[in-house]
């Protein structure tokens, strides 16, 4: 009798288990677009939850500025990133100099760990200090959000083209889809005698759901090329997602060879 009961319970569990899981997945809302929230990227506490696609990679962003005398200034910022099957992420952001007017020499590394299950983001700072921020996990929208990013000055007129699809291709074993957008600041808008032409091109990994390659051209800040390299589609070391205790003491995680 008891065994029959256990068998029945097991059958029920098998029956409702997937349904419960599906219900849990449905609990996570679709990420709102930046336009809908009217909150600039980075300032929102919504964090994309991508599960079942673990990887580690190195993102390198190289900005080249050509000065009026013809000389070139090259700046590089690096983000080493990991994501496990549960959607936990770790990003080690090494900033040297941030382009723009004026440029800022930062020369620091900040580590950001997002734990969607705990709904917390941990920022590990130089010196072992840590800051914690609540996050709201959300499912990536099926359509790309073309309004992600910090706001541009509202009073600066700008003509922006509709995104142009560039098709798909293989890049480092990843199927990537490309999009390109162009923008123009009309002549005289900011004391410029000629129109300022800008463009952005991004190639998005369909399986990993991250930008694999990008090129940004803006005569004001130079040309920035971004490339995600050293892509490994394996489960990262769980120690990478361990968060220090309240005292801030934690053993440094194993750092993969670059």
């Amino acid at each position, binding site marked *: 009798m008891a065994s029959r009961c256990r068998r029945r319970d097991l059958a029920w569990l098998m029956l409702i288990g997937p349904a419960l899981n599906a219900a849990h997945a449905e609990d996570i809302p679709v990420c709102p677009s930046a336009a809908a929230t009217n909150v600039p990227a980075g300032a929102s506490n919504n964090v994309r939850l991508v599960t079942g696609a673990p990887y580690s990679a190195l993102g390198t962003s190289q900005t080249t500025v050509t000065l009026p005398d013809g000389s070139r200034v090259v700046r590089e910022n690096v983000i080493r990133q990991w994501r496990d099957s549960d959607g936990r992420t770790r990003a080690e952001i090494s900033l040297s100099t941030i382009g723009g007017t004026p*440029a800022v020499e930062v020369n620091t590394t900040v580590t950001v760990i997002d734990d969607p299950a705990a709904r917390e983001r941990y920022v590990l700072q130089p010196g072992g200090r840590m800051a914690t921020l609540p996050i709201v996990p959300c499912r990536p929208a099926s359509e790309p959000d073309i309004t992600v990013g910090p706001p541009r000055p509202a009073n600066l007129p700008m003509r922006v083209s509709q995104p142009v699809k560039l098709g798909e291709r293989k890049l480092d074993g990843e199927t990537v889809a490309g999009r390109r957008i162009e923008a123009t600041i009309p002549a005289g808008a900011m004391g410029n005698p000629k129109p300022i032409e800008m463009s952005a091109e991004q190639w998005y990994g369909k399986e990993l759901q991250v930008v694999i390659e990008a090129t940004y051209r803006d005569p004001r800040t130079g040309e920035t090329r971004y490339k995600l390299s050293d892509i490994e589609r394996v489960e990262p070391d769980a120690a990478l997602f361990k968060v220090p205790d309240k005292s801030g003491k934690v053993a440094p995680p194993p750092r993969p060879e670059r």
Partner: protein
Amino acid sequence: MTDTLHPQLDALLARYRRELRDTEPSDSLDARIARLVATGEKVSPRRPARMRRVAFWAAAAGLAAVAIAAGILIGMRLERAAPAHVAQQEAALPADFSLWPADSVALQIPAEYSAQGTLVAVDPNARTTGKRYWIDVVVSNDGTVRIDRIVPAETNHKKGAPDGITLQTP
């Protein structure tokens, strides 16, 4: 002069004759008059002056209510339309060049101008040597690292962590 009457005039005269005949004393005429007297109140198209005033004011109040309701509805529609219009403009003009979803983190970094005239990140615990600024930086995994804004440290800005790098909250 013509000897024959115009057909229309002829028809009118015939009708007049018929009506004269009907008004001649007869049983049917008496019955009609009795019916009319019995239902006199209903037949009378004129209502008392007081009733007319009440009806007038009721109609005026109804019209006023309809006008106020229409005004409220139009106002609500206009109010709803305004933010939608703004949102549409924002959607038409992408805030940035990011074409695909990306993950971003906003950091606040304290900085000072160096002797070379460039902004350099500093340790907030270090003694200030000049005017200090907060730099809001947004780093995304689509390769964009952008300065969102730079504000003097004296302004009412979120206080940073001891080493000066904090998350920016909405």
